[in-house]
């Protein structure tokens, strides 16, 4: 068992790159971003109520994609349930990503939890990858209402 200098470099590089990724990852999770394309009411809705097996909210629908191997999905579910309980025109729907792969591919959902915000017509108006904080959710709902 001999410690060689390439191994020391490899260890340092691995921990260094992982740290950079970890810091970027932590800072980017939970932030809501506006949808890239403008909302064009003429085109067909991106998501239909049938696909998420739930009626849309009269103003907004928060579609949360979850999976079994996801610890922050529980916290996100509890947070969005709590917030939408007080808002009659905003609906929260929790969708198991694995059993909705067609929708997951169309919306390009890559990790869980991802929360996609739909307007009343089923067009995406924003999304957050990772668990959002309470204030982030309240702010985005206020800005889209």
């Amino acid at each position: 068992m001999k410690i060689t200098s390439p191994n020391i470099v490899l260890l340092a590089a691995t921990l260094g790159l992982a740290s950079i990724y970890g810091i970027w990852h932590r800072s980017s999770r939970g932030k809501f971003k506006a949808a890239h394309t403008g909302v064009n009411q003429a085109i067909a809705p991106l998501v239909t109520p049938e696909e998420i097996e739930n009626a849309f909210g009269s103003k907004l629908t928060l579609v949360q994609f979850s999976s079994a191997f996801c610890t922050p999905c529980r916290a996100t579910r509890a947070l969005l349930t709590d917030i939408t309980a007080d808002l009659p025109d905003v609906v929260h729907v929790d969708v198991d990503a694995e059993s909705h792969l067609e929708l997951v591919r169309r919306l390009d959902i890559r990790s869980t939890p991802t929360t996609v915000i739909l307007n009343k017509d089923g067009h995406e108006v924003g999304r957050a990858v990772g668990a959002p904080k309470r204030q982030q959710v309240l702010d985005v709902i206020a800005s889209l209402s």
Partner: protein
Amino acid sequence: MTTLSATSISADKDIQLIDARGPRFGALITTVVLAIALLTSSTFVIGLQLAVFALAVGFGPARGPYGLFFKKFVKPRLSGDVPTEDARPPRFAQVVGLAFALTAFIAGLAGATTVFAVAVAFCLAASFLNAAFNYCLGCEIYLLISRLTHKAR
């Protein structure tokens, strides 16, 4: 206003909850062990970690070697609220660790030093991210694996 779909995996009564600090402590020990394996190019050390991963996958993360060590020696010294989590996400991370450790172990036995080093480095990066940033491996890769392994209709 929440509705869970019929296929939802979130029926809380079915979920086995464990102390969330246990897997994170385990990730810390794993990080140290993998760093030693990488520094010394030791197939023997990877073999030990491979056995730990296999036991944690088989018996659950709370009953694997590091989980039992945490319960007996670390948990009694901790105070405050016990944060809980579903046992499935850390178990999934152990499965991923097992795959990398097995690759490294076989490469080590076969004398494929580059494959050994790369596999140990990936395993180390994942366990370090878990220990330092509470990184959720299952959140990031499980859905990607599902998308790749289930063909589009």
